[in-house]
């Protein structure tokens, strides 16, 4: 039987049923178990991509979860995640095909992090842990399978990034500020899954700063390099990942709202420089709201900046994750 299973894996990979890595073949009995764990019937309609005449039924999500290697105990989380991915606000086909090479960033927060064994400490952005790896992979496979119009749409990502294979981070169960999902209207005690389309993370090293302001200045500077996609349209925003050692300094000086305001006020570049270097069109469209001779933030509004607390102790590295400019909203759903 083992040989047949290997053949099935090869068959999936050779016929477009794969993200490029080996998959668990979606045998009917495994898909049925996953459907049961997700609380769905196979034919339940869980989403629609209206302009492409595509209706997505629960069986597709369950098959994808099996193929990604998810455990059935992740079922309630995967149900919320599936609904978030298929929310029209997320624009799943846009994420799949954009030249921006965006991935789906999955953020898991609340008590579910410990219940399902997510890694939220060491290597929080790239944990070698089944929950992180397979839930993140599931999201990318859904993007690929559901966002490509049945295979007729081709991704035009110019360089992409490794998160297009898996990109899932989990927040510390106990946080200094309120949990991540409270920034999107859910109560602190909830478990939640949030998604956004995102570029790859930028590491922010500050080992010798002695104040919260010095840490936020470093993070702000990382958001401010010429190459940030945000400069022109400013539609996406940023997620700032703060580990415990940086957080100890920042929380002593700032609340979450104050920290966001500080970065918004201080992380700016001269508009004319951005135009001269080619980061803003010389004749900008009105949507871009370009003011000549002014100091420009890469954020159109302060609510485009959010924070997540995760990462290991003993190192002083934060991270800035730029969101893709085509998905203007984070989709955050409770896990029930």
């Amino acid at each position: 039987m083992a040989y047949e299973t290997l053949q099935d894996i090869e068959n999936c990979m050779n016929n477009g049923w794969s993200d490029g890595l080996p998959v668990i073949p979606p045998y009917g009995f495994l898909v049925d178990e996953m459907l049961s764990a997700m609380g769905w019937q196979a034919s339940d309609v869980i989403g629609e991509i209206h302009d492409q005449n595509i209706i997505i039924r629960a069986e597709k999500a369950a098959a994808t979860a099996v193929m990604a290697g998810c455990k059935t105990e992740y079922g309630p989380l995967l149900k919320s995640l599936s609904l978030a991915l298929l929310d029209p606000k997320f624009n799943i086909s846009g994420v799949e095909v954009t030249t921006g090479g965006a991935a789906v960033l999955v953020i898991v927060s609340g008590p579910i992090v410990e219940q399902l064994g997510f890694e939220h400490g060491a290597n929080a952005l790239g944990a070698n842990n089944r929950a992180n790896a397979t839930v993140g992979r599931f999201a990318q496979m859904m993007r690929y399978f559901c966002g490509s119009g049945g295979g007729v749409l081709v991704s035009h990502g110019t360089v992409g990034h490794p998160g297009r294979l898996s990109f899932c981070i989990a927040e510390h169960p106990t946080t200094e500020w309120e949990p991540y999902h409270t920034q999107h209207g859910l109560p602190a005690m909830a478990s939640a899954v949030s998604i956004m389309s995102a570029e790859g993370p930028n590491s922010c090293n500050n080992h010798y700063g002695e104040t919260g302001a010095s840490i936020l200045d470093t993070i702000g500077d990382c958001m401010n390099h010429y190459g940030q996609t945000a400069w022109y349209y400013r539609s996406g925003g940023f997620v700032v990942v703060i580990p415990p050692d940086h957080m100890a300094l920042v929380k002593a000086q700032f609340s979450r709202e104050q920290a966001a305001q500080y970065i918004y006020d201080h992380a700016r570049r001269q508009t004319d420089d951005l135009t001269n270097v080619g980061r803003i069109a010389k004749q900008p469209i009105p949507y871009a709201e370009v003011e000549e001779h002014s100091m420009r933030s890469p954020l159109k509004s302060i609510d485009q900046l959010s924070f997540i607390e995760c990462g290991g102790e003993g190192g002083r590295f934060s991270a800035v994750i730029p969101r893709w400019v085509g998905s203007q909203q984070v989709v955050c759903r409770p896990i029930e």
Partner: protein
Amino acid sequence: MTDKTPTSGGLTLPSKQLMSCGDITCELLVDPIPRPAPEPIKVTIKPKLSRVVLVDHLKPNSMAILKLTQTILRERGIEVDDQILVKEDASRPMPAAMLDSLSREGGLVLCGISD
């Protein structure tokens, strides 16, 4: 075992059906890929009318390129609509009403042009 993998414009589409076969029996694997029903978009290679409709999607220099296109096509005797339509947000799908209207256009629709 697989069904025949169809192609579309040089693309190899994912298989719609895969089977797992043991010594005695075969079973279908569950297809994970949702597909359009019926066809996603019908592309007409040859327009019914000799006319061009231009759509600006607001990416950098889209309007400038389309205006130049309008001028060049007219110099070559091709009818081009005076109005250059505007898709308000390059990063979002085209609004349904606009897509519906353009799908009934008999001429050639040119959009998605920018630097």
